[in-house]
């Protein structure tokens, strides 16, 4: 399987990662290698095997619908880079 330069740029775009132009060839090769390894796994016959969603053979424990959390806004906002008036402040985004 071959990965194109445009694929790497697309993945970087989705992941919000910036990489140097000269790194692209490195990542192209590494991601191609990973995909090739996955392709090798495809050779195993899995026709009789059900897809696995989780490695543990257990099911989800459910929580009672109860409000327990308190308002810890001030505590949490101490960790924020910027906050004002109870809001978190982030660089302006207009969609």
């Amino acid at each position, binding site marked *: 399987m071959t990965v194109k330069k445009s694929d790497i740029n697309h993945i970087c775009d989705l992941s919000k990662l910036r990489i140097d132009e000269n790194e692209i060839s490195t990542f192209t090769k590494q991601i191609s290698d990973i995909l090739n390894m996955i392709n090798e796994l495809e050779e195993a016959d899995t026709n009789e095997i059900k*897809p696995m*969603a*989780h490695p*543990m053979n257990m099911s989800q424990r459910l929580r009672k619908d109860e*409000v327990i*959390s308190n308002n810890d806004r001030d505590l949490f906002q101490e960790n924020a880079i910027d906050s*004002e008036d109870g809001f*978190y402040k982030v660089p*302006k*985004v207009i969609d």
Partner: protein
Amino acid sequence: MKWETVIGLEIHVQLACESKIFSSSSTKYGMPQNTQASLVDLGYPGVLPVLNHQAVVMAIKFGLAVDAEIAEKSIFARKNYFYPDLPKGYQISQYELPIVFNGSIEIPINDKSMKTIRITRAHLEEDAGKSIHDKFDNASAIDLNRAGTPLLEIVSEPDLSSSEEASSYMQKIHQLVRYLKISDGNMQEGSFRCDANISLRPLGSNVLGTRAEIKNINSFKFVEKAIEFEVERQKAILDEGESVTQETRLYDSEKNETRSMRSKEEATDYRYFPDPDLLPILVEKDLIKEIKKELPELFDQKVDRYIKQYSIRKVDAVEIAKNIDIAEFFEALIHHFKENYQQAANWLLSELMGYLNKENISITDLTITADASAELLQKIHENVVSTSMAKIILKQLIETNDSVDEIIEAQGLKQISDRGQIEAIVKEVIELFPDQRDQYLSGKEQVLGFLIGQVMKKTSGKANPKMVNQILLEKLKENRRR
């Protein structure tokens, strides 16, 4: 070329849970910013989501009500994208193996016939927070109170072929979730909103055209308008021989237009994968059975029962059952007032609903109890008060805390149904207006209305109108004989 419209809707329903889908913070609407956002909602490292039992029960309830299959095993997936109101960088949703799939619902079209709309799936997911762009000059404000609010996303097949059908379907789903009490359905607060996928294809073709997705439509009227605008826009493009771009568009209700938001991501761009933090949900058959047993009476059954059990006219039964709050009020009303069910329906639909519409409030905003309403109906039924007096009493009942009897007493609104008393007044009126009497006797029957009016005036509207009419006719007849 003739084009055929193809529409599928994705409806987001906020589930009426007390706490969030994966955390124990409150889902209450309108609280101060970020006071209901816990570590889990904020996506702190090392926290784990724990699924809300009630959200699962509500999803199953919906599934059963639309004859869908309930997945014995369903899983959560991460939908990855970056936006500041999604702190984790992914939304926990369901992709493969949703909890509900293969359902259908019947919607009324053209007032008469019904159409079956297939429901592809309904899956559980968390809502994102809210970004406010005009709060600060050079920053966006983020409120994460809504982050993690439980949602059920209901996806239809592209079975809808007009804006009216889309609106009808949306209303039907809205009615259903309100009946099931799995959502308050409040559209102003965003508890019920939809995205519409719209495409055109040559009439008769069975290949789907390229679609545009219109986001976040929050009213039945807007869904119609947005679709109408979008259909015209696509038609113009296709008629020019050009092709529609697959993209996400936003409906602007003020300008009544849709405009491009961003070119649509492909599902692969979201890089969905099973969320390792959450184990598969296994739904036991017993739980489904238990929920099935507790399913409430739904719209169609209610209408049928109103007609059969209470002998109410069909149009009225439909009108009452349309809104579960009205239906519940009606049932409480006739629990206390059993004299005449149709009379109760008439009063509810014309008097009480009239008041609600005039004041633009909903029945749940009223402090008036079904009990007090039944008492008032009883007074009308027994001719203690006239219907016009009852209007005044109703207004007082709603606006004060007084009882029906207190209001009647204080305002002197008791209807005069004493035969002797009315006879005396009628006699007086006939003597006062001999010209009108003669006109009537010479065949000008419309003068009767004038004479009735005079009697009502003399009694300040309190005379029983039926009796006034009857007695007046009798007295005039006597005059004729003389």
